[in-house]
C-alpha cells in the first residue's frame, strides 16, 4: 500500500507586483508519498477552488526537470532540500507526516514577484540577447564534420550548455548574482571553435547587460553551485572572469563593443 502523509504548508501569497504579500498557512491530508511536490500543490489548488478561493499561482510546465519554468524556494532552499533536481522532480517521499513546509518565490531584486510564487525572469533572457549566441544564419553552415572538435572540449561545452535557465543560482545567492548563469552560457560558446569569432564581444556584452539588469556581483560564496539542479560547477565563473578580463584588455586596444 502506498504511504500517505498530512502536511502543513506555509505559502507566500502576493496578489500582484505591488502587493506586500504574506505567508498563509494551509493543511493538506492524505498526500501520497509517490506524488511529486507540484502534484501536492495541484491538490492544494483543487482544495482551494472547492472552497471558492484562488489557488496558489506557481510557474511550472514540463514537469520533468528540463524546461526550467518551476521556481520556488522550499524550506529555504531553491528547488528544495534534495539538491541536483528541480522542484518538479522533487517527490513527497522526501518529506514526512506532520511536517511544516515553507514555500516562497525566488527572492532577488531583478526577479520581481508577479503573483504568489510566480516571478519575472526576463532579465535572464536579456543577458542571452546581448551575446549568448553564435551567429550562424540558417543556410550559411559548412558540413558538420568539417571542423572536428576534440571530445574533451565538446563534453565541456555540453556540461556548460546543460543550464536550464531556471534562476535558482540567482535565488540562492545572497548578492542575487547571475554569474553562474552567465558563465555557463559564455563557457559553452567561448569554448567551442565556432564561438571564437564573437568571444570577446560576447563576454563583454553579456557581463555588461547582467550588471545593467541589477544582478549583484559574485563574491565566491558558492551557494549557486549548490542550488543548481544541473550541476553547473563554480569553475565556470572563474573561466568567465578570465575571458572577461582578457576581453576588456583587447577592447581597450581594439574596441569590439
Amino acid at each position, binding site marked *: 500500500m*502506498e504511504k500517505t502523509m498530512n502536511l502543513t504548508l506555509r505559502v507566500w501569497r502576493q496578489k*500582484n507586483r505591488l502587493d506586500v504579500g504574506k505567508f498563509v498557512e494551509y493543511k493538506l491530508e492524505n*498526500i*501520497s508519498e509517490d*506524488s511529486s511536490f*507540484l*502534484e501536492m500543490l*495541484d*491538490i492544494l*489548488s*483543487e482544495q*482551494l*477552488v472547492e472552497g471558492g478561493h*484562488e*489557488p496558489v*499561482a506557481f*510557474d511550472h*510546465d*514540463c*514537469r*520533468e*526537470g*528540463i*524546461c*526550467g*519554468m518551476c521556481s520556488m524556494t522550499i524550506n529555504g532552499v531553491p528547488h528544495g532540500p534534495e539538491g541536483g*533536481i528541480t522542484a518538479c*522532480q522533487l*517527490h513527497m*517521499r522526501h518529506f514526512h507526516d506532520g511536517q511544516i513546509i515553507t514555500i516562497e518565490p525566488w527572492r532577488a531584486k531583478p526577479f520581481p514577484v*508577479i503573483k504568489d510564487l*510566480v516571478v*519575472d525572469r526576463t532579465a*535572464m*533572457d536579456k543577458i*542571452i*540577447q546581448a551575446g*549568448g*549566441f*553564435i*551567429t*550562424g544564419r*540558417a*543556410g550559411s*553552415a*559548412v*558540413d*558538420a*564534420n568539417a*571542423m*572536428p*572538435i576534440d571530445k574533451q572540449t*565538446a563534453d565541456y*561545452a*555540453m556540461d556548460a*550548455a*546543460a543550464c536550464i*535557465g531556471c534562476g535558482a543560482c540567482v535565488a540562492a545567492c545572497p548578492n542575487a548574482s547571475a554569474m553562474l548563469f552567465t558563465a555557463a552560457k559564455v563557457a559553452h560558446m567561448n569554448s567551442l571553435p*565556432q*564561438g571564437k569569432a564573437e568571444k570577446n564581444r560576447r563576454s563583454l556584452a553579456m557581463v555588461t547587460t547582467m550588471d545593467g539588469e541589477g544582478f549583484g556581483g559574485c563574491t565566491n560564496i558558492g551557494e549557486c553551485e549548490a542550488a543548481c539542479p544541473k550541476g553547473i560547477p563554480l569553475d565556470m565563473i572563474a573561466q568567465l572572469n578570465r575571458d572577461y578580463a582578457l576581453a576588456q584588455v583587447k577592447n581597450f586596444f581594439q574596441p569590439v563593443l
Partner: protein
Amino acid sequence: MNLDSKIPEGPLESKWSSHKFNMKLVNPANRRKYHVIVVGSGLAGGAAAASLAEQGYNVSCFCYQDSPRRAHSIAAQGGINAAKNYQNDGDSVKRLFYDTVKGGDYRAREANVYRLAEVSSDIIDQCVAQGVPFAREYGGYLANRSFGGAQVSRTFYARGQTGQQLLLGAYAALSKQIGLGKVKMYNRHEMLDVVKVDGHAKGIIVRNMISGEISKHAGDCVVLATGGYGNVFFLSTNAQGCNVTAAYRAHKRGAGFANPCYTQIHPTCIPVHGDQQSKLTLMSESLRNDGRVWAPKDKETAKQIREGKLNANDVPEDARDYFLERKYPSFGNLAPRDISSRAAKEVCDDGRGIATTGLGVFLDFRDAIARDGKHAIEERYGNLFEMYECITGDNPYETPMMIFPAVHYTMGGLWVDYNLESTIPGMFVGGEANFSDHGANRLGASALMQGLADGYFVLPYTVGNYLGEQGVAAAGQVTTDHPAFAEVEADVKGRIDKLMSINGTESPRSFHKRLGNIVWEKCGMARSKAGLEEAIQEIQALKKEFWENVRVVGDADSLNPELERAGRVADFLEFGELMCRDALMREESCGGHFRVEHQTDDGEAKRDDENFTFAGVWEYKGDETVPALHKEPLIYENVKLVTRSYK
C-alpha cells in the same frame, strides 16, 4: 474545402529544388516592410521566427511560457535523424525518406517526406554552426546511434538532452534577433483566435496572461507552431501548458484539421502511480538499445510481483517472456513505437502486467550490465537512470525498470499543402501542429528533425513566396483598425466573460481529467466502433455539463491559471469529439490508430489501402453541426505499399 496539395511537378528528387527556383522572391530592401506573426517558440516556431528575421522581415513571436527557451521541444531526449551517412552504413536521403514513409504506415505525403529527408543534413550543419554540443567521438567527429527502429545509425544526440540543446540553439538565434529589434517577443501571451481579412489570415487575438489584457495583432501572414494536442488525454508526456487552443481556434475559422485520430503512444514511460498524478514521464527510447522488455510468462508470477511478494530479479529465465524479441525477432526490442506499445498492452490485458496497477512491463538492463559492465551503461544512460530513480525511488541498476505506454506525440494536425500553408490562405503551420510528415506513426528522432526542417529550411522560403505573391504594395496594409479585428476580439472577450460567469461547482481540472479518461479508454491504444460512439456521446454530455457547471475562481484581469485551463479544456472537449469522429470514420488500423475490428489473425494492424489511402480532413461547420469530411488522396509514385513487418 480546397485540398490542393500543390506538390511540384517533376521527379521526387528535384521537386524541392525546382520549387525553390520557381518561388517569388522579395527584394531584401522590401522585406522590412512586411510583418510576420509567429505563434510558438519551439523548434519550428523559434527557428522560423529567427530565420525570417535574419532575412530581414519584421517578426512578432508569441509564447505562453515566461521565456521562449521553455517550449516543450526542450524535453525531447533521444536525438535527431539526418541522412548524413557518416557511419558509412548504407544511409541515404532515399532511405530516410523510405523509412519515414514506411514507419508512418503509408499515410504521409511522399513529396513532403522526401523534402524532410533532403534537408535533414542541412539541419545538422546548421545546429553545429550554432554551437549545439552534439556527442562526439574521440577523433572529434560527430557520433551517431541507431534509434527507434532504424537499421542504420543516423541519429545525432547530445547526451539525453538533444531537444534541449537544439531548442537552445534556436532560442539563441531568436534571442539575437530580439536583441537586434527584428523580433518583438511576447512572453506569457496566449493566442486565443485568428483574424481573417478577405479570407486571408492577417492577425491574431492574444491574452496577456499577467494582466489579462486582450490585444489585437496584425501582420502580413501568420505562422502557427503551437505543438500537438496530446493533453486532450489529460495524462501525457506533454508539458502542462501544451494545448490545442490555437490550432482549434484556427480550425473553427476555416483551417481543415487532418487525421486527428493519429496519436502516438510511446512505449517507454514510467507507469501511472495513482489518481493524483499530473503527468507521465518518458524514459528515452534509446534505453531499448540495451534494455530487454519482458513480462512474466504466467499470471500467477505477475500477481506475486504486483503484490510485492516476489522480486523481479528472482524470476528465472525460463519464466520470462521477452515478448518483443519473441514476436519481432528481426527488430526485437527496437520495434517501432506503435508496435511496441500495443504489444505491452496485450501482455497487460492478458493479466501479466506488473507495477501496483498491473499496467506495466519490465525494461531490464541485467544482461547489458553483465555484457558491457556497469560503467558502460552508466555512460550511456546515467542521467536517465537517475531520473527514473528520482521519480520512482527504485534503482534500475539493481531492479529492472517498469515501463508502460503513454500518449506522447500527435501526428494529426492542421492540414497544410506542400508550402505548409493551411486551408486559410496566409496561415502557415509548422512542427507538430501540422499533419504533414509522419503519417499514422512517427519514428523516433524524427520530431526534432521535422520541427527544425520546417523552421529553418521550409517556412523561410514558403512564407517569403506567399509575401512575394501578395506584392509589396500589400505589405503592412492591414492594421488592427480593420473591423474584422474588433469582431473577433469581441468573440474572445465574450467567451472569457462566459467562462467567468458560470460559477458552477466543478474545477476545470476535474473536467479535464474526466475527458482524459474517456478518450484514453475509448480512443487510446485500441479503438472500437461501439466504444467511439459511446465516447462521442459522453464527450457531448461532458461538454454540456462543463458550460453549465464549471467553476473558474479568480478574475479575468490578472494572472489566473484556472481561467487559462478552463479555456483550454473547453477547446479540448470539442476537439476530443472530433478525434473520436475521425477514429470512427477510419475503418482500418494503421500506425498509432488501431481499430480492434481491423486486425490480422495474430493481432497486427490491418490497413485498408484500397479505401483509406487518404488524409481525412475535417471542416468545421458550426457548434451544433457535424463536421464535414474531405479527403486528400495520398498518391504513392515512388514507394510500393506493403504490409509493415518487423518480424
